[in-house]
């Protein structure tokens, strides 16, 4: 693609990326979520990440299910196609779309209800297939659109706005993904854009299923005292274990970090993720140890954040299926249909 659209506002001082696009070119429709919603911060982080990666807008495919979080795919990168599907079924739409065209960047946005309740099955199987996509959960522990019911990620003892106390254990998407063999597992907080933007960039470039569970407080239904998913509680109980800086292939590694603190991970396209370990004992390439550490902290009511686990050697769906480099939707019919002579040969078996 050589065509670039005209920026909506051509202010000379707006910074441009390598494609000559400003951040505004990566925006979408106006958000209709509540003022102060954590999800809007995540939308802003996705815009920042996409602009920073010089993504051609039309090459981004935005996918979602149903819920507050799923609405947000309309609020970023309006130059890319969006598919707001049905509740909990976004992974299957993503799977089909990715099967048809492996060249595009697939970004899924889901919520804790959409992923951990109605969509739990599809979520698990997308991980098993190592479907090449970035999958962001905007996790607030509550059903917003239906006004405040607990979701499956609600912690034991957390209090609903109307006073009800949750007694069922939560499903933690991060631990679940670790168990299922996910190749990229991260957790972050909607209020920590500095941590979130490079995580999203790394997730978009990771070859395989990249999960980012983003704690994203619901200002309307889950931001009160007694809630374990409020802004206040999250800020107090959140602890960065491994921060990641995403370095695209073309760019030099910045020399900000002293060698030794930084663990570089090279992605399939030559880009690098620089992992800055804040906790020396944490190893983000050891699945078992990482799982243990995450669980230890959860027991104390704390969330470890950052890029918690990464494996760049996993086979994604197309590796297993042995599909060609050219997207399936671009193969000419002449190469797909075997023709009448081949049919005649087939029929011999049925005489």
């Amino acid at each position, binding site marked *: 693609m050589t065509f670039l659209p005209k920026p909506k506002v051509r202010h000379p001082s707006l910074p441009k990326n390598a494609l000559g696009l400003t951040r505004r070119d990566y925006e979408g429709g106006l958000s209709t979520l509540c003022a102060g919603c954590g999800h809007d911060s995540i939308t802003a982080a996705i815009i920042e990440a996409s602009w920073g990666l010089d993504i051609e*807008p039309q090459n981004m495919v935005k996918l979602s299910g149903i819920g507050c979080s799923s609405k947000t795919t309309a609020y970023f990168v*309006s130059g890319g*196609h969006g598919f707001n599907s049905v509740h909990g079924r976004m992974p299957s739409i993503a799977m089909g779309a990715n099967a048809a065209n492996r060249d595009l960047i697939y970004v899924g946005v889901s919520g804790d209800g959409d992923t951990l309740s109605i969509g739990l*099955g599809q979520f698990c199987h997308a991980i098993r297939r190592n479907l090449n996509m970035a999958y962001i959960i905007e996790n607030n522990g509550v059903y917003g659109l239906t006004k405040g019911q607990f979701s499956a990620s609600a912690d034991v003892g957390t209090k609903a706005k109307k006073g009800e106390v949750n007694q069922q254990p939560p499903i933690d998407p991060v631990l679940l993904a670790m168990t299922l063999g996910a190749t990229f597992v991260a957790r972050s907080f909607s209020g920590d854009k500095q941590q979130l933007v490079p995580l999203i960039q790394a997730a978009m470039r990771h070859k395989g299923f990249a999960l980012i569970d983003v704690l994203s407080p619901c200002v309307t239904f889950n931001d009160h005292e007694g809630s374990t998913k409020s802004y206040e509680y999250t800020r107090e109980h959140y602890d960065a274990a491994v921060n990641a800086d995403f370095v695209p292939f073309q760019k030099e590694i910045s020399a900000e970090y002293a060698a030794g603190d930084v663990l570089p991970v090279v992605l399939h396209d030559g880009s690098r993720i620089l992992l800055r370990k804040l906790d020396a004992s944490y190893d983000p390439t050891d699945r078992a140890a990482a799982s243990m550490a995450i669980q230890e902290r959860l027991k104390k009511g704390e969330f470890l954040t950052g890029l918690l686990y990464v494996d760049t050697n996993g086979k994604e769906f197309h590796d297993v*299926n042995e599909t*060609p480099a050219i997207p399936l939707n671009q193969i000419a*019919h002449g190469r797909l249909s075997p023709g009448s002579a081949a049919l005649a040969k087939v029929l011999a078996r049925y*005489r």
Partner: protein
Amino acid sequence: MPERVNNFAIKIATVNGTGSASANSLLMKSIFRSGVPVMGKNYFPSNIQGLPTWYEIRVTKDSYVARSGKIDIMVAMNAETYARDVREVTSGGYLIYDSTWPRPALLARDDITVLGVPLAKLCNENFNGVRTRILMKNICYAGVLAALLDLDVAKIRELLADTYAKKPALVDSNMKAIELGYKYTKENFACPLPLKVAPQLLEGGSKTRGHIMIDGNTSAGLGCVFAGATVGAWYPITPSTSLMDAFKMFADKMRVDPESGRKNFAFIQAEDELAAIGMVLGASWNGARAFTATSGPGVSLMNEFLGLAYYAEVPAVLFDIQRVGPSTGMPTRTQQCDILEAAYASHGDTKHVCLYPKDPEECFYFARDAFDLAERLQTPVMVLSDLDIGMNDWMCPDLKWDDSYVPDRGKVLGLEEIRKLEKFHRYLDVDGDGIPYRTLPGVHPKGAYFTRGSGHTQYGAYTEDSAEYQIVLDRLTRKFHTARRLVPKAAIEHDPKVDIAIVAYGSSDGAVREARDLLGSHGLTTNYMRLRSFPFGEDVEKFLEAHKLVFVVEQNRDGQMRSLLTLETRVEKSKLRSLLHYSGLPISSEFIVKGLLAEVEPKTRKPEVVPATAKTSGGAA
């Protein structure tokens, strides 16, 4: 019994998992290869081993493709079902059983001939190993039938050699069993029976020339390969699984890039039917030809996504290989019971394009047509086959492929077209046919739009505005009206002098064709319309209008197609009369003849005529 050459039916009662399938297909194919038209139907249990199973072979010189409803020769190999198997034989017919053990109850009927062959004894004396003996006992009855029916043993050997090309030792052991049965029968009974097979190879143009024996799932899977499908997503369910197996088998052979060795298709076993149809939608939305195969329970699960596809206008191809419902029903038995479910699948005002293939040949061509229609109309297209079509081998004319075929990819804007647009509006009726233009991801930012199942305007934006919502919904009605012109037309045989008609569809066609011949011999002439698709075209309206009395023949309890016709055409409900067959076995011509005669007094009662003299209008030709 008077001699009846090439015109009788055999039923073989065995136990599931004992190798009888090989024996049965051996018998059927050897008859087919001798130039005589044949029909085969497998009635099998939902079980791997141990439950009763039957196979019906009809030798039919007139190329009829349905059950006659009568059994002339019964091979009773299963003690558990002896009693009912004996009852089913037509008076004057034959019963063959394993006389290793005495079965005095078999002699309860004096109007049939009972032939005892010590099959187990013969095999125990000649083969070692329990499993081998069981398998060979079943091959052995094929030898018995070969002698009784005058089949060519050399042809059987030839077939075995084809089947076991890679395991020549099996050819010899199987032939040994065939010969054991053959020799014993020749020595102990007058062979052949009056019911026998006479090869028709030497006659100018045998009826099997230019024909194949194939099942509808295989031909549908093959059709998908030829139509250019690149994404197949599915969840295993009887009786649809073999369609996906066939697609994979053919694609593995014919879709591997010779240079790279990579596969020009994606084959995805989903976690359930919900995911399977989701994958199809995702892939179709992204410009691939994608499909799934399932059965009624799967369609139930897919309802939500089918509604999304209807409203968001995403192409999809779905094969529904119908089986007996409700609920889990009888998974290995046949019915046409998803007619209404398919036509109106999902909540809200939804309607879907459905195709009703009559046999494996039409499954092949409808596979191609389904993709063209789905992409042209930007909507799901369901091909409603059934277990009888999908899993039984049918004699069909050779499948043909036109190399000049160009797939109809519908109204998809390319890069240049998008560039020229001032603004792209996804759901605008530009051409007045109700079909909007669509774009694919990855082409141009100006073509980007947001696909959603929530209310949207004709420009593609979210809406909760009544008028904006209705504009789109009304356009969808216009689009469905356009579909009436594009779907396959009904197959109509209409003599204006006749005012009684039969309406049928799908796998009932063969039985109806034969029944009409038989009714003709009773002095009852009928017109015939075979529905091939929904929505119904003007031709369907006119045909219904032109008749005083219309019998709707269906394989379900509730007369689902009759309901659909009443809802979707101008026809008066009172003149549609149902003939309903829903036992789980394929409908027979006899059922239709009896049903019609019970309701209509033929104008001129001729004496009963033997079906053999009936004029041929059936068959696959």
